[in-house]
């Protein structure tokens, strides 16, 4: 090969690199491992983690231990899906393109919207994306966030805001939910309002009233929703929202210490040209055959460059495909039953635990906040000694919640699990 190239050694191939920037010697890294040594090393690291197979966990707060069916694994293991690139050459990638089109359809069905993209990075960055859409759609420079919106989502929006030239304002919660009149006042001159349903505390927000308040003020209402709840809770598109966003993990992805998962963003058709990221559209080929292709690419960075709707390129396609496989496995009946089961378990847990609720008399979905009568981290430590993780310490994000725990019930829990939780908290 060197002869064909016309050089005498591999070193000559790097002759254009100036001597001053050549790295001499070897990288200071540990020596290479054989395959079995890699497995042994990674197994040893994994063994130092306490995962939800080893501890009865009621942790939620944005990432959920929902059941992932075996068909999802089967789909993710197909080497073609795993190792394909972005489908820029449609003739080679009808499989991925059609799957993304089906995913887009599923997200639109869940959220009641007209257009979805092929995925965003996660449930936090899609909120920043949505603010960018709203800014350009309204020409306004302020965004309003409910305080009951996931704290990490708010933090990410605030990180992106200066570069976008946006001011961020928060509306505080009132007994665990958002007051539509307060939201209306804050929404004057705002580009958008983002609220969460169910919210970070697990409470059901008066979502249609919040959307109406935003619309009255000329701000785009944006709902951050839990896909698992959309078999029992109304779709944002049905109550006046302009965009719907969220974290897809609960529908088809393992917890995986926080990632990779998939964010979703969907909008009414008015906003299709402002949507960030990839969109797959339907068309025909020269023989009239139905075909799928990346479309409206002029929005994207590779064409519009500095005026693109986003810089996003690589997104979360494989995880979104897992979401599609999961939703296909569930079906509309399954999704509704799953939502009902979570609600039933949560209601039973509230009663069985008998501990004061942080927000009494609020309707909730699969999570709720309780007061444990001592610092939350204490309760967690004691419970974990009995093999139970009782939930998330809300004081990590909110002041005045020293003794509050956010408890999550997914369909993987049973009533005897709840009995164990009660005992662990009573200890």
């Amino acid at each position, binding site marked *: 090969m060197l002869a064909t190239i016309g050089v005498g050694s591999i070193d000559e191939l790097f002759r254009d690199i100036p001597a001053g920037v050549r790295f001499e010697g070897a990288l*200071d890294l540990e020596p290479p491992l054989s395959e079995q040594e890699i497995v042994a090393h990674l197994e040893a690291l994994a063994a130092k983690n306490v*995962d939800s197979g080893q501890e009865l966990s009621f942790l939620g707060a944005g*990432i959920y231990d929902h059941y992932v069916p075996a068909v999802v694994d089967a789909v993710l293991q197909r080497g073609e899906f795993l*190792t394909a690139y972005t489908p820029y050459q449609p003739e080679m990638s009808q499989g*991925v393109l059609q799957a993304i089109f089906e995913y887009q359809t599923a997200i639109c069905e869940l959220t009641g919207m007209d257009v979805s993209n092929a995925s965003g990075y996660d449930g936090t960055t899609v909120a920043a994306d949505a603010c960018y859409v709203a800014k350009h759609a309204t020409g306004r420079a302020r965004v309003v966030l409910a305080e009951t919106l996931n704290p990490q989502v708010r933090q990410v929006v605030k990180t992106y805001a200066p570069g976008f030239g946006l001011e961020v304002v928060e509306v505080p919660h009132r007994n665990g939910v958002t007051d539509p009149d307060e939201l209306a006042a804050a929404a004057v001159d705002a580009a958008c309002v983002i609220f969460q349903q169910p919210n970070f505390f697990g409470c059901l927000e008066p979502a249609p009233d919040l959307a109406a308040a935003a619309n009255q003020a000329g701000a785009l209402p944006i709902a951050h929703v839990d896909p698992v709840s959309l078999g029992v809770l109304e779709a944002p598109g049905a109550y006046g929202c302009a965009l719907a966003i969220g974290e897809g993990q609960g529908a088809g992805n393992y917890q995986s*210490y926080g990632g990779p998962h998939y964010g979703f963003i969907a909008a009414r058709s008015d906003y299709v040209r402002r949507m960030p990221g990839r969109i797959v*559209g339907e068309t025909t080929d020269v023989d009239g055959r139905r075909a799928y292709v990346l479309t409206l690419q002029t929005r994207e960075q590779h064409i519009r460059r500095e005026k693109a709707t986003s*810089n996003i390129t690589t997104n979360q396609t494989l*995880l979104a495909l897992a979401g599609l496989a999961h939703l296909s496995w569930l079906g509309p009946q399954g999704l509704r039953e799953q939502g009902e089961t979570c609600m039933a378990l949560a209601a039973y847990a509230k009663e069985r635990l008998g501990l004061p609720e942080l927000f009494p008399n609020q309707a909730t979905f699969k999570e709720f906040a309780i007061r444990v009568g001592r610092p939350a981290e204490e309760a967690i430590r004691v419970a974990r000694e009995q093999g139970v993780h009782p939930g998330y310490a809300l004081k990590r994000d909110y002041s005045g919640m020293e003794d509050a725990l956010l408890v999550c019930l997914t369909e993987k829990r049973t009533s005897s699990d709840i009995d164990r939780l009660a005992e662990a908290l009573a200890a």
Partner: protein
Amino acid sequence: MKLIYEKSQEGRRASTLPPNDLPVPEIPQELRRERPPRLPEIAEPEVVRHFTRLSTRTFGIDTGFYPLGSCTMKHNPRVNERVVNLPGFRDLHPLQEEEGAQGALELMWRLQQILAEVAGLPAVSLQPAAGSQGELTGLMLMRAYFADRGEERRKIIVADTAHGTNPASVTMAGYELEKVETDARGNIDVAHLREMVDEETAGLMLTNPSTLGLFDEHIEEIAAIFHEAGALLYYDGANLNAVCGISRPGDMGFDIVHFNLHKTFSQPHGGGGPGGGPIAVRERLEPFLPVPAVVRDGEAFRLDYDRPKTIGKVRGFCGPFGVFVRSYAYIRAYGPRLREMSEVAVLNANYLLARLKDAYELPFDRICMHEFVLSARRLKREHGITALDVAKRLMDYDFHPPTVYFPLIVPEALMIEPTETEPKEILDEFADAMLEIARDAAERPELLKEAPHNRAVRRVDEVKAAKRAVVRYLFEDHPDLAEEPSAARELEAQKGA
């Protein structure tokens, strides 16, 4: 092939759930779902068949040679899939107490150390979700750095060969964009650069080797120009596969570097993601890194949230952890032999270049790095065959085409990156195919114009797709696009521009 929705039959389902006999609380009427979402109603056998068929209509690295320039389509070792699925990683909640997540924290910390060594820069954040997000994070760091120093700097300079994400990131970070030209040798035009850099310049965004596959011979001078003006240099790590252990971005003079874990470090591309875009920075930028930081405390590892100067958070939790597991396992298979990975990548690219440069046009006659750019301009002028036609015809040989029409400064561009995991015989097969296509451009052009011949579909009507914008299945209202006329004229890809 039917859509999964077209295979739905009312009442069918794949899922089984444990029975619930507890009472279900009532949802207030105004919040309740009125009409169920029209998800597929389909049993498991058909679900499996559907996705299996879809996968057979998809071409991956597992299927064949995939020389997409700037994408680094290298083989994804299967052992990485085994370890990422260990329950200790897969089923770990990100809010688990730190003492219950020591394995995850240690893995991240070790990966940070490795990336620091490869970059030649001491401080690392794994948080950004992809290269684009790494770029945006890097620009946010620059803003924070200059704000902290009380300096107002408005402009970022980007090469005219830059990937579109660079200018898009510049806008999202609230900076103004300026473009510097490339000279006849494929290096940044240093004279042009000198005129542009002033006290309002925040920094440079550059890939080295560039998207032309060429190492910038003046990189030391370029770095000096920016540093003398008090500005910073950002390294787009998309092309790092060429220089691991051979030249480190920190030593080249860059202050911020992003890695593409889904390129250099073998996170599988997944049809468009996930990826990972961690960044490494110089000491003086460390205080601004995203929060939390993963730190070592004696024998233990923990998350440090006490970072008063942080830019904040760019993504949830610590980043795409599953991607870290794969990249970490990948790198542990190499250790210091990452250098050999780069050497073979560069060898393979130069070999293909040598075999192809006479049949096609080579805009910059230099040794290339891990990728190279050819032009099909002569084929277009003499036979009306474009880079697009070459790409479509390659599909008939069971190869994925290279990147086409990028970088923008080369007309009818074909960007080819073989990577180090391809054996010589595959490279020769590909070269033979490319040479035959060049001959067919003269002798049998209609064969190329009508390619591909044996894929699931033939060339698609992108004009109709853009105009009609059918972006979801519309159930009973779904149009039959076959009944709508195609574009009256044959579409050509980007003309000139």
